[in-house]
């Protein structure tokens, strides 16, 4: 009983430390709030607003933003079928996040796991993995997507699959290159002298050193994947209407850019804010996770970065 209490207290102490470090970097704090909002929208939005988001109102076609006469839902305007933009964006957050997060996480986990194997062992598997990566890289990703999605149903899961496969080599190569360098460092040698198992060396000594790089790449990739998804939607093999994503909304608004800019602008803004927040947060995380750098945050966050 005492043990669980103390571990609970330790847990709470850790959370407090994280919040304190987050508060020290105001940009990262803001970014965290934005991302929290996006996640809440993705989780709760479709439950309450999916009716609103698909209700057509032909008298309100391309209704301009900031007019309250049609109600609060129309504050950001309406699209070419008169559907209110605000609830549509909130509902679209779910698919967008599902595709982007799914693809990024899948490719990161698979890619870095393969990269760790390829970098750490000197066996033939390392060669096999690297050539596999080369094959994926040399194959045009859009062509792969077209073939796969033409043969399979263009569902969220399949899009995640396609996007994940095409992004794997990036993590694979980065991880392998870093592991090759870290493996030769003295503290890894010291661990080997101690008799440490390979698994422990990889996960306790090598992975934490490689991780910040991977997270930075992943946040950059997040934006790329969201845009790739919208270009698939544009070709008609991505998310199919009436399902919506931010990327799809941008491409649907494109023909009306000259007379109704808000159709593409708001979802575009959401995309930018999300990726920007992710970048800011990953920069903060890189510092907060590194004991050598952490003082920058602890001393009050005057000079971070």
């Amino acid at each position, binding site marked *: 009983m005492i043990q669980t209490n103390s571990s609970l207290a330790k847990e709470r102490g850790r959370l407090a430390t994280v919040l304190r470090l987050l508060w020290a970097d105001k940009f990262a704090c803001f970014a965290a709030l934005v991302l929290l909002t996006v996640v809440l929208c993705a989780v709760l939005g479709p439950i309450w607003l999916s009716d609103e988001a698909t209700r057509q109102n032909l008298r309100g076609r391309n209704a301009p933003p900031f007019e309250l006469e049609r109600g609060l839902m129309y504050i950001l305007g309406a699209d070419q079928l008169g559907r209110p933009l605000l609830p549509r964006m909130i509902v679209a957050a779910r698919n967008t996040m599902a595709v982007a997060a799914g693809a990024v996480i899948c490719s990161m986990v698979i890619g870095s796991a393969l990269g760790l194997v390829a970098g750490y062992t000197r066996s033939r598997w390392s060669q096999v993995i690297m050539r596999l990566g080369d094959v994926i890289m040399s194959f045009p990703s859009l062509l792969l997507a077209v073939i796969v999605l033409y043969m399979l149903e263009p569902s969220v899961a399949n899009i995640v699959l396609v996007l994940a496969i095409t992004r794997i080599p990036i993590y694979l190569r980065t991880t392998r290159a870093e592991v090759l360098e870290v493996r030769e460092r*003295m*503290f890894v*040698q010291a661990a080997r*002298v*101690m*008799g440490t198992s390979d698994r422990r060396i990889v996960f306790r000594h090598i992975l934490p050193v490689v991780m910040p790089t991977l997270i930075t790449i992943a946040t950059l990739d997040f934006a790329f994947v969201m845009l790739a998804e919208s270009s698939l939607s544009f070709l008609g093999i991505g998310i199919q209407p009436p399902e919506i994503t931010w990327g799809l909304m941008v491409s649907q608004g494109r023909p009306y850019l000259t007379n109704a800019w808000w159709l593409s602008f708001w979802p575009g803004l959401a995309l930018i804010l999300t990726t920007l927040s992710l970048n800011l947060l990953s920069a903060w995380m890189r510092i907060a996770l590194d004991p050598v750098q952490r003082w920058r945050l602890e001393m009050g966050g005057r000079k971070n970065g």
Partner: protein
Amino acid sequence: MAEHLLEVRNLSVDFHTAAGTVNAVRDVSWHLDRGETLAILGESGSGKSVSASAIMNLIDMPPGEITSGQILFDGDDVLRMTVAQRRALNGKRIAMIFQDPLSHLNPVYTVGWQICETMHVHHMPDDQARARTQELLRRVGITDPAAAMAKYPHEFSGGQRQRLMIAMALAMKPDILIADEPTTALDVTVQAQVLALLQELQQETGMGLLLITHDLGVVAEIADRVVVMNQGVVVESGNAAEVYRNPQHPYTRRLIDAAPGKGDTREERDRQGEPLLRVEGLQKSYGGFHALKGTSFTIMPGETVAIVGESGSGKSTMARAILRLDEPDGGKVVWKGRDLLAMPPKELFAIRRDIQMVFQDPTQSLNPRMTVFQIIAEAWIVHPDILPKARWKERVAELLVQVGLHPDMARRYPHQFSGGQRQRIAIARTLALKPRLIICDEAVSALDVSIQAQVIELLDGLRRELGLSYLFIAHDLPVVRDFADRVIVMKSGEIVEEGPTGQIFDRPRQPYTRALLAASLDPDPVVQAARRATRQSEGLVPA
């Protein structure tokens, strides 16, 4: 006419860091005359390089700031000059060479091009520059200078590269040559050659030589006058021999006392009985290069065996082969009657505990993302049978006290410690496994002299308390003299000579051992002068 060629007056430099303002040097004054060698002696962090950086305009501002003082070169204050004026001075009238010549030579240009460039910058026509380059290379002792000009830096050895740097620095016949730890990265024999070259060149050209070093031996070998610095302040200055014989400041006295190689050698031990470790015909080659050519030796329980040799002699390869960090190609390593090399992985794992290693650079051998507690306790995660988890905290505290650190330090990360403290942590980590034999691979060579003495003392104390044996790999002979029972001298993968420490140092049999001993520098200028004379007369180290 100015009084001195170069004079630094009351120089103070601050660095504004996030942790507050650091006074790198405070109120430092010294001067350098033509044809004179001045050594600035100090340990890391003493600010010995800062005044030289200020002269060469190498201090980044911000975070650095020169708060007061003057640097007079031929009577003109360098600090008040325009950027263009200073650029005209740098390289032409004041030149500098650095510790690590490889990182200061550009790898993508030929050596000839790089030396010529210095002269091009100062407006010398190309054909003249090339002729002068060739002449310079010949002067610094590079064979076949014409061919050498077309080569790239990686095609030269460390000593040759330092010669190239010297040639480059001398290109414009400077009045002053600043040498920042010019021989620290070099082997002893090469060090002696490079110092001899510097001295010759100085006598030839009459330039002023400013030498920045941490090594009392280098001061004894080459300096006329010495300035001793500690924590940003000049504590003592004067004639080099005078300062050594009659140090005034307590810090100088401490520094001189800490210099290794003065005490008595250990008494010879009885080597009867079963050895702890027996290495037989160990071989290892990398491609066509034979790093170890079948070496054999033994270590008795409680004995300290030192392996000395220059870089490339195979001494580190030996350590790695014994631990099977690199699989050897042939031979036997017998530990308590069992061959380690023929052992299945499981039994080897159990024996891993008994043989541990302390690495050269503690900054790299400790995982920067783990706390000291995690680093030390990892030993018990890997070998759970040593200690139950409940006692970890207590034992870590014990170990930290044993290596001379405070138990509260367990929560800190490696970067919060100094180099010497980090090496203590590394030693505590090896002790956590209760080993019988510790292999020290250049374990003290990255440390300052006074810290070095402390770590050696720690290791020696642990040997007496715990009955440990050491395999002590070093290039630094004086350290070995104080610490080892037996010495093995290695050269290109073979053992040249082996014997008790007293015998090797006082009655060396092989010419190579004699050359190595003659090349090592003694902190006493008088002893060093005598040694230099014998070296020249016997021709042991061709300059």
